[in-house]
């Protein structure tokens, strides 16, 4: 399995998804060598972690997501492209001495190495797409080099796994890959790993006092970029508030769009009731999930959307855009098209003014989100392994 990161050295969701997936596959008997571009200690006993370089994790500080800076030198004088070349070299070396049944590559980051395995060594290639460059570009064009890598890798792959039907459509439409070569493998969520969060209401006196006064707390957590559709969310929130003033919107996260979002909420006259928390993670993130009544995922294009599951785990009602992968598997949620601010407003208004709707949504999603563990995803992927393994 070709990966780019694993917790705790991860910069985002890719490492987490790979970890859970590999763990479930290993539990079901798959023998996995997990290749990483850096060398570090991982507390992992279910598979072999293989470093492709001798670099430490600090050399990877550019992260997996910012595709615009692939040629910039990192901390140790190596750019992402250079590390990818080393990674590819290592795969050659590795396949010279080791026998593998199939190669499972995650995202464009490792796809070139996967192509080397396929082309030069004839190893079956399964390409797993967590996000395409079109998603990362958020409506923009994205990096043409990465498009090229994605196109070639997906063409060469024996099978493509997409994290959602939405991603599958993008791969079909934008890269011209035939649909019958692509399988949808939605991500999973292991509720047990999350346990119970001991939320302490006394830490959030202001929000809790609003709540006691009967206010509905609406929250979203995201990088503040155009892709996440938060401008539309503020629009819809402002319209809903005209009918039902007892609402507060909490926006957790940071990003280049923050100042613009502040300006939008001031222009709409709701800045008093829109709170920006800045970048948060861990305990504080879980607190936000716990303090809110409704969680909105407003993305214009969201290949999957793990945050929806996290919010459901903390007992929030969900509103998701139809442009999100999570919305394909979570049925007990209200959905809207990201640009349809009127429908969003109607939804927020009804949830805020009807305790019954809110209660039933929370209750039902609370039962549903646990039914999609990684084990089920692993079954589907094992099936692909059996199909392609040499």
């Amino acid at each position: 399995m070709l990966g780019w990161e694993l917790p705790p050295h991860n910069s985002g969701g890719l490492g987490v998804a790979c970890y859970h997936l590999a763990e479930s596959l290993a539990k079901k008997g798959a023998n996995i060598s997990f290749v990483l571009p850096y060398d570090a200690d991982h507390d992992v006993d279910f598979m072999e972690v293989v470093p492709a370089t001798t670099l430490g994790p600090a050399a990877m500080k550019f992260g997996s997501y910012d595709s615009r800076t692939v040629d910039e030198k990192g901390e140790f004088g190596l750019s992402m492209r250079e590390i990818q070349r080393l990674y590819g070299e290592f795969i050659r070396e590795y396949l010279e001495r080791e026998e593998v049944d199939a190669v499972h590559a995650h995202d464009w980051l490792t796809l070139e190495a996967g192509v080397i395995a396929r082309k030069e060594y004839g190893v079956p290639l399964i390409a797993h797409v967590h996000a395409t460059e079109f998603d990362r570009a958020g409506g923009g064009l994205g990096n043409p080099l990465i498009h090229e890598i994605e196109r070639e890798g997906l063409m060469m792959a024996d099978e493509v796994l997409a994290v959602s039907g939405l991603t599958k459509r993008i791969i079909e439409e934008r890269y011209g890959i035939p649909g019958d070569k692509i399988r949808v493998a939605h991500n999973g969520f292991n509720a047990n790993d999350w346990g119970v969060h001991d939320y302490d209401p006394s830490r959030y006196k202001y929000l809790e006092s609003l709540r006691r006064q009967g206010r509905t707390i609406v929250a979203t957590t995201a990088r503040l970029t155009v892709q996440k559709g938060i401008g539309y969310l503020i629009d819809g929130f402002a319209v809903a508030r005209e009918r039902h003033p007892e609402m507060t919107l909490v926006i957790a996260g940071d990003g280049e769009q923050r100042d613009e979002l502040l300006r939008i909420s001031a222009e709409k006259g709701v800045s008093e009731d829109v709170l920006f928390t800045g970048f948060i993670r861990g305990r504080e993130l879980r607190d936000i999930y716990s303090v809110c009544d409704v969680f909105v995922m407003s993305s214009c294009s969201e290949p999957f959307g793990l945050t929806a599951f996290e919010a459901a785990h903390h007992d929030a009602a969900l509103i998701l855009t139809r442009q999100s992968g999570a919305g394909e598997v979570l049925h007990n949620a209200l959905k809207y098209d990201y640009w349809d601010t009127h429908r969003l407003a109607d939804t927020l208004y009804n949830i805020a003014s009807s305790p019954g709707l809110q209660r039933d949504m929370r209750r039902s999603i609370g039962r549903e989100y646990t039914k999609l563990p990684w084990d089920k995803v692993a079954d589907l992927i094992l099936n692909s392994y059996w199909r392609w393994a040499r």
Partner: protein
Amino acid sequence: MKTVALSLHMHQPWRVRHYSMFDIGQKSDYFDSPAFQRTQNKYIFEKVAERSYRPMLEMLVELLETTDFRVSLGVSGVWLEQAMAWRPDLIELLQRAMKTRRVALLGETYYHSLAFLYSSLEFDRQVKMHAEAMKKLFGAKPRVFCNTGLAYNDRLGLWADRKGYAGVMAEGCENVLGWRRGGYVYKPPKAKRVKLLMRDYRLSEDVSKRFSDQSWDGWPLTAEKYVEFCEAAGEADEVVQIGLDMEVFGEHNGAETGIFEFFRHFVEQWQAAGNRFLTVEDATKKRATAELTCQETVTGADGERDLSGWLENAMQHEIIEKIYALEEAVLLRKDKELASDWRRLQCVENLYFLSTKDFNDDDGVIKMSAYDTPYDAFIYIMNALRDVGYRAGE
């Protein structure tokens, strides 16, 4: 000789279109759905009319005119409204059936509502409206009462007795019947005249649920087999009560399943074997064998045979409470259209669409609904009720 009383029910709700909060106070066209929504009442009615109502009614008329067949029909007021608007030919067929004098009409609420549980005054009004519609169109008076979804309890039994009905229908489930047999006629405690008729839900659901179920060991259900089942179900002095929705024929089970031929052959062979059909009204002439007590409401809803498909979750309670909280304000306005809109919203389907019971169960089967989720349904119906409240000056 064995006896079967067959009741067929015709009903279609008025579905609420995707009615948003921006429509509240602006327009009140809740039931005029645009073409791309699954709430198009006209489209649905005409489709079911073509697939089910028309072929079935034609067959019933033919069987009534040419054989000794007898049947009981339940026709909701909202079904009539839609038939009059879009398919008056169905009403003519019903009138031809009535002319044979072998048909009994069932009494019910005009709006297919659960008013009985929330407002006895409104319940009485809706029953009266229905009886008047029956009189006007078919010249007959319903003598047997069948509440929405077969919802029944002792209170309803006594109510029917007081109103002078000859009979009242209930689901023949075990927790009411106990060790008794469903084919006999009973009476509610303290009732003077009214008889209690118990539907045989197993025999009824052999057709409605299992006719196309290939995993059922009785599949395929032939007319011969069903004659045997019905003969085995009752003693000579019993009347086996079979109750079915008309849509079972042609809609839930398409014509290609052979359901129409099955029905025709069953009716013919049942009589050829020396057995006969009765209407529910005929059945009430039998002597009541015992009193049956039923304190908790039972219904014909599959599974739990209680109200839980309509009144379980918080959304359903919120909607129904809002509906009946508006009663006084709506009726004080003396605005016919407003009252009609308010009543159309009382259709039990508007509660069924909100059920989260089977929504997305383990097999990922999503129940039949005009909406994507129960929550969407709630938003549209609640918005419509808000508009009703606005029009009523609330």
